């Protein structure tokens, strides 16, 4: 079941690319989802709460493992750093204390990377965790923005725009108050520009959360 929607914001000509998602497309994992933003596509699969190795188990909470595989080649340091960002965001959103001594495994596969990869991974991860029925106390979404050489803020940049910009930022925002849960930034920018970017991303996240709501109600009301 695919859905596509678009949204816009007046300031700085900041418009999110067309995004869409698909639920439960894989048969083996407990939950799976694919998220598409423009041309960037990420596939996520969740297994859990499942058996955990004694060396990794935690007595009071579930152990979350995230694996991100790039489209070509072996996973490198960049993938490891993205995995840590995603893992920390998911741990903050999941109610891990409800399943102690278990493991939750989240596997992400980059199908195509055309910019805003970390944001797309976060969105796919959130949809897959919801699809698996894991208890969460809030939802989260990822929004990416770039500041180009002239100082204009461009929302949801493509890979070409990311290369030409002087700073690229990705934020994970929560659904209850749209506050920043995780930020990953690269490049040079002033403190004022950071605050502006956060404000632009918060406005854009509202459309992503509305999309989550519409896609869940379409999925359940169809069944």
């Amino acid at each position, binding site marked *: 079941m695919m859905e596509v929607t678009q949204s816009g914001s007046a300031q700085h000509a900041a418009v999110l690319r067309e995004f869409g998602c698909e639920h*439960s497309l894989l048969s083996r994992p*407990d*939950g799976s989802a694919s998220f598409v933003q423009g041309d960037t596509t990420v596939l996520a699969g969740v*297994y*859990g*709460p*499942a*058996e*955990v190795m004694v060396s990794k188990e935690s007595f009071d909470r579930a152990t979350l493992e995230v694996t991100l595989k790039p489209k070509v080649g072996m996973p490198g340091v960049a993938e490891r750093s993205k995995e840590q960002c995603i893992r920390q965001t998911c741990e903050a959103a999941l*109610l891990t204390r*409800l*399943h*102690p*001594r*278990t*493991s939750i495994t989240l596997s992400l596969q980059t199908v195509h990377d055309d910019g805003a990869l970390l944001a797309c991974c976060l969105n796919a991860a959130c949809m897959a965790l*919801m699809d*698996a*029925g*894991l*208890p*969460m*106390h*809030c*939802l989260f979404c990822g929004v990416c923005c770039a500041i180009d050489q002239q100082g204009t803020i461009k929302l949801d940049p493509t890979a070409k725009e990311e290369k030409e910009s002087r700073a690229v930022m990705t934020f994970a925002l*929560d*659904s*209850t108050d749209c506050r920043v849960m995780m930020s990953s930034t690269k490049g040079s920018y002033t403190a004022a520009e950071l605050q502006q970017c956060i404000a632009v991303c918060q406005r854009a996240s509202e459309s992503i959360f509305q999309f*989550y*709501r519409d896609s*869940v*109600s379409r*999925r*359940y*009301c169809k*069944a």
Partner: protein
Amino acid sequence: MLCCVKEKIGEAVLPGDLLAFEIQKSENKTEKLICGPGLRRDGEDVFVCKSGILRHKEPNLYWIDLQQRRYVPAKGESVIGIVTAKSGDVFKVDVGGSEQASLSYLAFEGATKRNRPNVQVGDLVYAQFIIANKDMEPELVCIDSCGRANGMGVFGAGGLLFKVSLGLVRKLLSPQSEIVKDLEKIFPFEMVIGLNGRIWVKAKTTQQTLIVANILESCENMTTEQRRSIFGRVSENVL
């Protein structure tokens, strides 16, 4: 997002939604509210922790109806388990959860220390959870509180075991299940349904067993009309 609960009954809700109940504070009456699966209490608030449809049963029971595939053991539920090991006085049983459950050999009808039950590794057992919470290893028994088997125990000579989603299993086990009624009309067969998503079926011939298994696996995503048309075609081909 704060929303009034009456509007949301029957609609999809997302994790993080706060539900507001209209409580009339009058004359020291405290209203009792039962939060089922998918709802959690945080101080004075009730919030949703899983995405699904909000359901309500009079007078005060609310829960979230969701489609899940991974089973989490809960006390009192009857499940189909596969015996994986015999260690001392206890059988280790795989129920599809995060941990293996333990089943004592005394928890069978008529079992004593001298008279051990005839259970081998690989057998299917239909048992009930007596202990199932997040902090302890789950425990199963094959007797009810009076000491009778009541349908539980080892079963499964012949037949086929397969896995479906938890939502389908709950639909099949509901009192007036249409799927079961339609299936009964096609041909006679035996079925054991475990709340952990496992179903065992056995019909007179292997082909009929496979037909029933395939129908049940595909029932999940069909509407009533599609299901009736498939059942009609199958009964025409069989007869």
